[in-house]
């Protein structure tokens, strides 16, 4: 055990010195390696962050939403519609929802105005009170306790006292959110009582969602039923497609990188070849040289992995991924003004390792072996 460990230490020592002496030659490849890790890591970190936001939205979403449709367009639902769903067995927390968009000219941004669910005691609001998203607070430079003024398209004013600013990373992630009481909402948008944007309900047993959506459709033939499963499928379809395109592009790049690594490892300089020959002549065997070369590969990999990952972390979470954002624009339109919550977990790191370190090592195995099995008597010629 002791001899085994010291032998590894010597091999690492020699590998490090060898990198030091011949490293300049492989510096170009190493930088490409870092770049590959950086790009893959950016996509993985960004994708995972976006998915997490989406899941948070979906987890807070109702199981079934009924939307009135007229000539294929979304219409307001009425209190009478809600009553028709009242008797459905298995459904729960049935209520009409009120939400809408407001283009805010002073901030030049779209806000989402919404009345919080009556079933959620955390967001109970008095008249003249509001809870706002972090983005709204930032754009309008207000904080809890201050006043927020809104102007409707019909030039109606709404003066609100900010009760709370939603923290980043809360379940309600939309930072463009303005939560107001029902009376304020109706007055501001001039909406008569008994009208709702849509109808939401919860289903106690997840296995019954489909059945309940069907029954609701029978009760309200003019409505469209959107289940949470439908929404998740839509998100997933968009994510999968985008990520798939990216990964397809990236796997081409990975393959090219693996070939490059293979080529570099196979094309040793005459000096390095000679060194291996000397080592073998003075008593190293093929296994020793393979071990030394694998350590060299490990040092290169770990270095590139760390450098690329740290750079990607900064890129995605500190600078909001300016380099890949255009490619993933489709995602960001779903989530206007989302600041990504910085989290990295073991799953992403492991995935990244599989994508970058595994192909690199697989590519250099054969060239390493070739180098290592040089004839030990060659240096005598």
């Amino acid at each position, binding site marked *: 055990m002791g001899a085994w460990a010291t032998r590894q230490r010597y091999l690492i020592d020699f590998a490090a010195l060898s990198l030091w002496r011949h490293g300049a030659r492989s510096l170009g490849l190493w930088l490409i390696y870092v770049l590959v890790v950086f790009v893959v890591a950016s*996509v*993985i970190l960004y*994708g*995972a962050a976006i998915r997490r936001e989406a*899941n948070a939205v979906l*987890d807070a979403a109702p199981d079934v939403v009924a939307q009135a449709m007229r000539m294929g367009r979304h219409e307001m639902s009425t209190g009478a519609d809600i009553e028709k769903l009242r008797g459905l067995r298995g459904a729960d927390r049935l209520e009409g929802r009120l939400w809408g968009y407001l283009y805010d000219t002073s901030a030049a941004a779209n806000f989402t105005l919404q009345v919080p669910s009556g079933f959620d005691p955390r967001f109970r609001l008095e008249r003249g009170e509001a809870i706002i998203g972090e983005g709204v607070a930032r754009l309008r430079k207000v904080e809890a306790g201050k006043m927020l003024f809104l102007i409707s398209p019909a030039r109606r004013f709404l003066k609100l006292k900010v009760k709370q600013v939603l923290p980043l990373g809360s379940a309600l992630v939309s930072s463009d959110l303005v939560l107001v009481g029902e009376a304020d909402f109706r007055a501001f948008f001039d909406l008569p009582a008994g009208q709702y944007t849509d109808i939401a309900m919860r289903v106690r047993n*997840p*296995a019954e*969602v489909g059945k309940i959506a069907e029954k609701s459709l029978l009760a309200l033939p003019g409505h469209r039923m959107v289940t949470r*499963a439908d929404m*998740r*499928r839509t998100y*997933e379809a968009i*994510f*999968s*497609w985008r*990520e*798939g395109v990216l*990964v397809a592009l990236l*796997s081409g790049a990975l393959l090219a990188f693996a070939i490059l690594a293979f080529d570099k490892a196979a094309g040793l300089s005459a000096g390095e070849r000679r060194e291996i020959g000397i080592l073998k002549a003075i008593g190293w065997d*093929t*296994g020793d040289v*393979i071990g030394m070369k*694998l350590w060299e590969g490990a040092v290169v990999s770990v270095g590139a992995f760390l450098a690329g990952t740290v750079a990607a972390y900064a890129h995605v979470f500190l600078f909001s991924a300016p380099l890949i954002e255009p490619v993933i624009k489709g995602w960001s339109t779903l989530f206007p003004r989302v600041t990504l919550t910085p989290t990295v977990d*073991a*799953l*992403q790191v*492991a*995935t990244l*390792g*599989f*994508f970058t370190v*595994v*192909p690199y*090592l*697989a590519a250099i*195995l*054969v060239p*390493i*072996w070739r180098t*290592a*099995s040089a004839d030990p008597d060659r240096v005598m010629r």
Partner: protein
Amino acid sequence: MILHPPILALVLASLIGCGLIAWASLFAWRLLARWDLASGAESQIALERRTYLVSTVMAFVMAMQIGALVLFVFNADRMAAMFVGAMCAVGTLNASVYGFPALYAKMAMFFAASLWLVADHVDGRGRDYPLTRFKYRLLLAIAPLALVEAGLSLAYFLDLKADTLTSCCGSLFTPNKDGIAAEMASFDAASALGLIAAALLLAGGTGLAAGSGRLPTGVLRVASLAHGAASLFVFGAALIAIVSALSLYVYEHPHHHCPFCILKREYGYVGFALYLPLFAGTALGAGGAMLRTLPLPASLNVALPSIAGGLARASVAAFALFAAVAAAIVWRSGLILIGG
């Protein structure tokens, strides 16, 4: 298919692993036909050289398989959010008929590859590479398994769709149902813990006997074989104990029998601390016993018994770690299942 990066990584690993093993088994075929160590012919020297590459490749595949097994389970747990009715890895694995078979195939690959590495290591200690033929026959036997493993993984991932309705641990590991899972759950806690304690004692006793250098050769050999059998027994008993008792202590809930939820962050990833030593101990014990099933080659007269003994001792150490973690779980839990 869900184009999730971890899924793509696992597919990539399966394909690389399967390709490398397929290549290695083609070489095995050639080697078995031509291997003659006494010859100084160039073709023999070339074959010997290539065995270095095969050993390196197999060690690489093995490391990758271990990583893939952990990633597979970890990812299944994370993806549970995407399936209706899934709370943990069980739901994700159940979302396709290929899920659990793929997991079992991956576990089988882990054990097969570790046996191969043991054979490879020992073979390299004998001056005439006495286990080479055995080793490469073993490789040929593993190759179809690798193929099946890659096929099942691929089928599983292709079959996965978001929002599939699936059943999770709550319905699978329920005592009053049919199937192996239910039967494991229906063990009562006291007898399950008794069973694993007995298995651990048996494995510990036989392992210490097999690992002590002082006994006569015949006894050592029997002890090694017994330890191998006991290791498999521990593996089975441990799974039963985890399902029927240990998981309950972790969740502090008298009816939640799930061997996967313990891998979650909520429970401090304690599952990994249980499974890693359990798998390692079983593989080491089985590896030691495998060596003892072979006729002892003259060139390994010293090395093989010492390695087999070392494996037995390492296996006992791993099982001891498992036992310590399990005991700590029971000790620290607020749940009282036995006695009261």
